[in-house]
């Protein structure tokens, strides 16, 4: 594997795409199975895993469809293996069935979505149109994924390690939600070697043959009286406990009159716009959620209680803004600027919407 410094743990920086950083991060995290199907703009991930995984003692399968990839992920998860699939929006739609089963059966796995424009075939450019699908469940039934949103190639690497740890900590699927911007851009990344995966990971539930113990069953079917209600209560309690994992980058929020809320690539572009406006003396700050579920609502609410106003910027027609408004409800509203999927945003595009929101005081 070129540029692979992950095995040596040296702090040498490598210049790679976000997609490649995803693959490097997954390998460093101990990923041993990858299942996927080609789709732009994330093909660097399966391509890299196809030559890197066998050397790492793992298995790479190019599946017949995203339906199959996600079900292979389910199978490997049932065996307690750290496994990964990746795709982009239309492919992620096809995976929703298996993801729902994984959530219902409490199986850990990591799904990377390099979000592209939709609906339908859309385009192959960046978009944040899959926010709802990612954070509200996405398939049938009441369930949640943990959703991490990288804004840099380094975060692509770091969040893959975090994603595998969270998946096994909570026995829940984790989604890493990037987009065509962070997937395709190149930046210096410092690989690091996380602690080795303990051999006992998943030892109390994984399937490996019932030697010397009772057989285990991993399922999402609960027909007995009260059983499904009990499972749903258990899952909801788990999702509530996940709130402890909420994380966001705060930038110049202390003296800010207006808080821009934006995630992923758009959060980073908004940061550039905020720097320009700060240089002109405008008191504007940024909150960039790094976890989309759990959502850093308490952080936003705290800022609302300080009298700050809000503008949510997204690369879609208005999705995360609903969670922002829910977080600060009863105190203040959030303005919204949606950059239309299909058009590439630059930091200048955000200047006028931010000034508009500031002028409304």
């Amino acid at each position, binding site marked *: 594997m070129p540029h692979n410094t992950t095995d040596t743990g040296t702090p040498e920086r490598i210049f790679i795409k976000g997609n490649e950083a995803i693959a490097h991060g997954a390998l460093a995290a101990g990923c*041993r*199975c990858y*299942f996927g199907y080609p789709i732009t703009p994330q093909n660097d991930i399966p391509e890299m895993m196809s030559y890197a995984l066998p050397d790492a003692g793992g*298995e790479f*399968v190019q*599946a*017949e*469809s995203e*339906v*199959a*990839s996600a*079900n*292979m*992920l*389910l*199978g*490997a*998860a*049932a*065996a*307690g*293996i750290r*496994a990964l699939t990746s795709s982009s929006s239309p492919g992620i739609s096809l995976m929703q*069935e*298996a993801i729902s*089963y994984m959530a219902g*059966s409490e199986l850990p796995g990591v799904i990377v979505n390099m979000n592209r424009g939709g609906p339908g075939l859309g385009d192959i450019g960046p978009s944040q149109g899959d926010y709802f699908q990612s954070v509200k469940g996405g398939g049938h039934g009441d369930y949640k994924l943990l959703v991490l949103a990288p804004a840099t190639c380094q975060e692509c690497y770091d969040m893959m390690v975090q994603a595998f740890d969270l998946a096994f900590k909570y026995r829940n699927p984790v989604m890493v939600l990037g987009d065509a911007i962070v997937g395709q851009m190149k930046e210096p990344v410092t690989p690091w070697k996380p602690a080795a995966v303990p051999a006992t990971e998943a030892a109390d539930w994984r*399937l*490996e*043959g*019932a*030697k*010397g113990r*009772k*057989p*285990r*069953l*991993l*399922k*999402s*079917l609960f027909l007995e009286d009260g059983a499904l209600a009990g499972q749903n209560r258990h899952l909801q309690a788990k999702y509530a406990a996940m709130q402890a994992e909420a994380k966001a980058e705060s930038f110049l929020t202390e003296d800010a009159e207006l808080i821009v809320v934006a995630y992923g690539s758009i959060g980073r572009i908004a940061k550039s716009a905020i720097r320009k406006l700060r240089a002109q003396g405008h008191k504007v700050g940024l909150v960039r959620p790094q976890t989309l579920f759990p959502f850093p609502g308490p952080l936003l609410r705290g800022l609302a209680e300080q009298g700050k106003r809000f503008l949510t910027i997204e690369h879609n027609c208005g999705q995360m803004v609903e969670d922002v408004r829910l977080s600060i409800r009863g105190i203040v509203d959030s303005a919204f600027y949606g950059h239309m999927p299909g058009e590439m945003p630059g930091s200048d595009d955000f200047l006028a919407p931010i000034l508009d929101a500031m002028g409304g005081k």
Partner: protein
Amino acid sequence: MQADERLALADDEQMAFEVPDVLVDRATHYCPGCHHGIAHRLVAEVLEEMGVVDDTICVASIGCSVFIYNYLAVDSVEAPHGRAPAVATGVKRGRTDKIVFTYQGDGDLASIGLAEVMHAANRGERITIVFVNNTVYGMTGGQMAPTTLIGQKTTTCPGGRCRDREGMPIRMAEIIAGLGGVAYSARASLDSVKNIRAAKKAVRKAFDVQQQGLGFGFVELLSGCPTNWRMDAVKANTRIREEMIPYFPLGVYKDVTEGEGVC
């Protein structure tokens, strides 16, 4: 009566055959005359004879047999409808040292799961598939399956399946045999003692080729569904002989241990 009392022998009796330990001693939810019980037992006997019970992972599918995990004491995972071969691929690629099998009906495997079974077979996944073909969707109440015979009446082809409207029934054992990664593909029937004995040999072979690392093992078992066929168990067995076997001929369609190997 307790199980051990039931099994206690009188002085003039002798044990002809034992219940496999891996078969859980409980009443099943299957209808009278259903062949799932026999198919489960064949799998149980084969796993015990191979000595792999403690190294086996079962992938349950959707349909009446989703509850196979209530009757077979092995580690099990539930797959979405039709996806068992993909789930089994994931399990096996994760644990190449284990015996992994799916147990699927004809709606699950030959309709919604056709892509998954074809590609798992073509890749030569080292898994075994036990395919129970009773020409009907059982659990949902007897709708037309891809294997429903021409003229057969179901709740969704009340006038009988028509070739021009619904197409011909799919012959899976033959289709699977045509794929490169397959080590063994056979069709057997559970309608009679003679055929059940042949079926057990086929089930064994379908597991043997996995254990030997030769490729994909597939066995189709023609089975009765008296409830949804609206007939008694004896007539159901007769129907298998007179209507199913002529269209779904019994036999071994591929066996690489008898000739050329696979990759």
